[in-house]
């Protein structure tokens, strides 16, 4: 005899792994469901003895095993040595005496009637990739969509996602950066108007519904377990995902056992490409959706730019380029390798036009400034690599200051160039690399863009 319970608890917890003490429900309700066996308790930290009296720890939420990311202290609550995980600390501390809960009862039923309101049509290239992706999903193997910037990667996902939704399956689109999630959210909401969609990122408010399509930063997948029938990782080569093993594990544990993880990117790492060739399927698109070639980077030397900017003087070439953009009323992005240098340059640019602003990862008005650039309220932005991907602004012109810096590797430069000429109305634009010496990465980026434009790809 099962007692009735609040279905919101099931809808919220299904597929999640959550701190017992931090649910949006009362502890009485949670306790009752634990007693009834609908909710299972999992220990926060698993500790196993290792050699020399050392212990090996595993965080059951983020699956971190790196011993340097754990701290052991004397806990006043469990009155003994207690270990906590610093990897996922910001989501509420998980320690030895913390309990995690997962939904173990009857699964929620997801609706099968979903409309797709997207009006566009796929190009033959997109259609082929989309069909191949659907095929891989049916076979439950991983798939990589390797498609140049501006080839309409998101639209390729629409048909396979729609098919999964109409089968009552649960789907996640994950991206390493919150900007990408924020850009995807309105597009998917308008494409799937009848579907319960939830965007999950640091600071987002949880909806109490069983959301069938989840858009999440890869960090937030720490808090999901065996939730999805498919996860699509957008911009799979972006920082911090590519360098952080725990984020890669998080994506893999977020899918149901045996369900596939698919990847979408314009600049796959060699590792991902070779892995996918061995164990999955790869679709390649080397044409933008409007058929125009990718903009070729132009190398312009800007000797000793750093010294000049630090002295409070903007190089002539930079002033001329900026003034030209303002005169043509073209929105522009200027990329810097370092926040400090960018902030020193900001007042110098403001002498040309006082409305020029700068953004970086921790900037409080980052979202607003990017929106203002879209709305043409700001003429242009100075930015760190944070805006290198995921953003689309019609007719945007791009310059990189210090393209020789290490942070601008081949992938980053290709992504930055990918911001230019995305819309069919403005298929070209400036992609200038101001440099203090040409690096291999700059050459490789140019070679690869040339090759893609000629129809070939790296294999």
């Amino acid at each position, binding site marked *: 005899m099962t007692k009735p319970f609040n279905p919101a608890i099931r809808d919220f917890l299904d597929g999640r792994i959550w701190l017992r003490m931090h649910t949006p429900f009362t502890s009485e309700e949670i306790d009752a469901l634990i007693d009834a066996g609908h909710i299972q308790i999992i220990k926060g930290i698993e500790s196993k003895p290792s050699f020399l009296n050392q212990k090996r720890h595993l965080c059951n939420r983020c699956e971190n095993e790196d011993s*340097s990311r754990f*701290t052991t*202290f*004397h*806990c*006043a*609550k*469990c009155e003994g040595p*207690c270990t*906590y995980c*610093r990897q996922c*600390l*910001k989501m*509420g*501390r998980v*320690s030895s*005496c913390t309990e995690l809960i997962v939904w173990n009862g009857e699964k929620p039923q997801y609706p099968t009637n979903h409309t797709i309101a997207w009006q566009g049509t796929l190009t033959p290239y997109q259609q082929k990739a989309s069909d191949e992706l659907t095929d891989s999903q049916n076979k439950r193997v991983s798939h990589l969509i390797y498609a140049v910037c501006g080839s309409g990667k998101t639209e390729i996902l629409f048909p396979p996602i729609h098919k999964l939704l109409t089968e009552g399956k649960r789907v996640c689109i994950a991206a390493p950066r919150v900007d990408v999630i924020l850009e995807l959210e309105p597009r998917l909401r308008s494409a799937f108007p009848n579907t319960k969609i939830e965007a999950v990122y640091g600071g987002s408010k949880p909806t109490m519904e069983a959301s069938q399509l989840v858009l999440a930063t890869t960090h937030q997948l720490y808090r999901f377990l065996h939730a999805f029938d498919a996860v699509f990782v957008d911009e799979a080569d972006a920082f911090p995902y590519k360098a952080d093993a725990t984020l890669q594990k998080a994506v893999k544990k977020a899918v149901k056992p045996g369900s596939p993880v698919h990847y979408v990117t314009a600049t796959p790492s060699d590792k991902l490409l070779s892995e996918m060739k061995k164990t999955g399927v790869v679709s390649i698109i080397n044409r933008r959706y409007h058929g125009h070639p990718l903009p070729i980077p132009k190398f312009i030397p800007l000797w000793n730019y750093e010294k000049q900017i630090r002295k409070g003087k903007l190089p002539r070439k930079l002033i001329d380029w900026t003034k030209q953009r303002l005169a043509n009323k073209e929105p522009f992005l200027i990329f810097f390798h370092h926040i400090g240098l960018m902030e020193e340059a900001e007042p110098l640019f403001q002498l040309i036009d006082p409305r020029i602003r700068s953004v970086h990862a921790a900037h409080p008005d980052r979202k607003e400034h990017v929106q203002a650039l879209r709305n043409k309220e700001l003429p242009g932005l100075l930015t760190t690599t944070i805006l290198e991907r995921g953003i689309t602004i019609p007719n945007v012109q791009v310059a990189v200051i210090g393209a020789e810096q290490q942070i601008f590797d081949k992938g980053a430069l290709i992504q930055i160039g990918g911001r230019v000429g995305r819309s069919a109305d403005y298929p070209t634009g400036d992609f200038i690399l101001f440099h203090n010496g040409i690096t291999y990465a700059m050459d490789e980026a140019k070679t690869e863009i040339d090759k893609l434009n000629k129809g070939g790809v790296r294999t």
Partner: protein
Amino acid sequence: MNCLLCEQRLASIPSWKSLLAVEKTSLICENCSKSFERVDIKEEGDVIDQITSIYTYNGAMREYLHQYKFLQDVALAGVFANELRSELARKDAIVVPIPMHPQKKIERTFAHVEEMLASARIPFKDLLIKTNTEVMGEKTREERLSMRNLFAIKPGSTIHNTTYILVDDIYTTGTTLRHAASVLKEAGAKRVEAITLIRAEK
């Protein structure tokens, strides 16, 4: 090793002091430690004979305190170990941390001031108990100033006719420290000084 605050790799510069364990190696990177702003206030008073504060309550410090106390990142207890030790080491006095209410301590799972002292290897004595669970941060200045005494001497401990140094994380209106100092003085302390990591704007 990575910086405990920004997770950047730490460039460690070997020195005789760190080799001989005179100075604890820094847990945070140079950039992060530069973001904290020294204030080094020293004030004389009658209830508290001398009060020293080391840092201002700027954005970086607010974030540090949030991660340490509210996200319960105990690993951060040692971030200011060197600074605390250089204020406290040479003094010939009994160090007394401002205590937490036992219930609050269980909720937080650790006593934040004691952990700071312990990781700086500064010997201290628990001589006070907190008598209520009220939180200073939730009170207005008027409410704070009119409160009755927050502390009592821990049963079974004796207070000598000597110097005591109270330690707390943050000084705002000074109510907490004045209450603690007056309890110690009533019990026979000759002189009570105080050291706080942070001085907040009143």
